């Protein structure tokens, strides 16, 4: 299983803060997880495509191509830039 966490404005769009995906080898990166969401949640997938969305894997900063394995927790955080 892959646990996917959505933060703030992304949780608003997703309508949830957490989503558990059954593990399959095709979900091997945050980018692949984003792509897998396109069919069921196109608005969420678009929001994840915007610049400067931050990704974490198991509480550490990660990239869109960071390897993902069964049991990992992937968090997506929308950009915040104001001051």
């Amino acid at each position, binding site marked *: 299983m892959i646990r996917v966490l959505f933060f*703030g404005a992304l949780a608003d769009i997703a309508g949830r803060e957490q989503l558990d995906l059954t593990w399959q080898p095709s979900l091997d990166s945050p980018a692949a997880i984003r792509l897998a969401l396109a069919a069921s949640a196109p608005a969420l997938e678009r929001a994840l495509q915007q610049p400067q969305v*931050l990704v974490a894997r198991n509480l550490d900063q990660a990239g869109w191509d960071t390897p993902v394995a069964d049991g990992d927790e992937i968090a997506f955080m929308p950009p*915040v830039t104001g001051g």
Partner: protein
Amino acid sequence: MLSGKQFQRYSRQLMLEDVGESGQEKLSQASILIVGLGGLGSPAAMYLAAAGVGRLLLADPDRLDLTNLQRQVLYQTADIGGGKAALAATALAALNPEIRLEAIDSAMDRETLDQHLPGVDLVLDCTDNGQSRQDINRACFAHRLPLLSAAALGWEGQLAGFDFRAGAGPCYSCLIAEGSPEPVASCATTGVIGPVLGIMGSMQAVEAVRLLVSGSCSVFGQLRRYDGKRGSWFRVGLVRQPSCPVCGNPRVET
């Protein structure tokens, strides 16, 4: 040596075992550059001035606008149209006349940063745009100065701490690469809840006090996210990117 008045003014933090008189003296000898005196810079500057940080450099090129007052708590309605750096210095001098306040009304590009960073102990990034954040990151890395970088939007805020004193990353550009396209959303287009900025700016002040009195702080190497709608916090470890153009491995000349 602290005067009797100073003992009184700072008594409620002097009481803390890990501040005490020596911690207060460290604060009074410290110099902090605050870049941006908006929603983050207002509370950060107010708390650091109140705490007796000896010298605050207050940098903001903007003039105060009516739309700023919903979140930029350092200013009054009658201040509209005035330069923020000078207004901030005046307000903070009234709060604590014992500290040095220097208003800088020019934009903080690389050149201006290089000019003002010598003699500074810590930099707070309280700006509202990506280019300034990257410039501040590069300058702090080059000058080996610790950097506390905060941002907020909507109901959300974040804080990241970078300890460049040993000349090593991770740095802001490891988190958000230089040259990344700017997000569409900004405070002007999306809006922001004032106290979310208050929380993040106050967090910068907490970490700054902690760093100055103890030599380290808990946010170095971390990203902290706050969601004001759900009241939740999330902590992410920052990861140094070896290919980072700012703090990555220098290219070996052959």
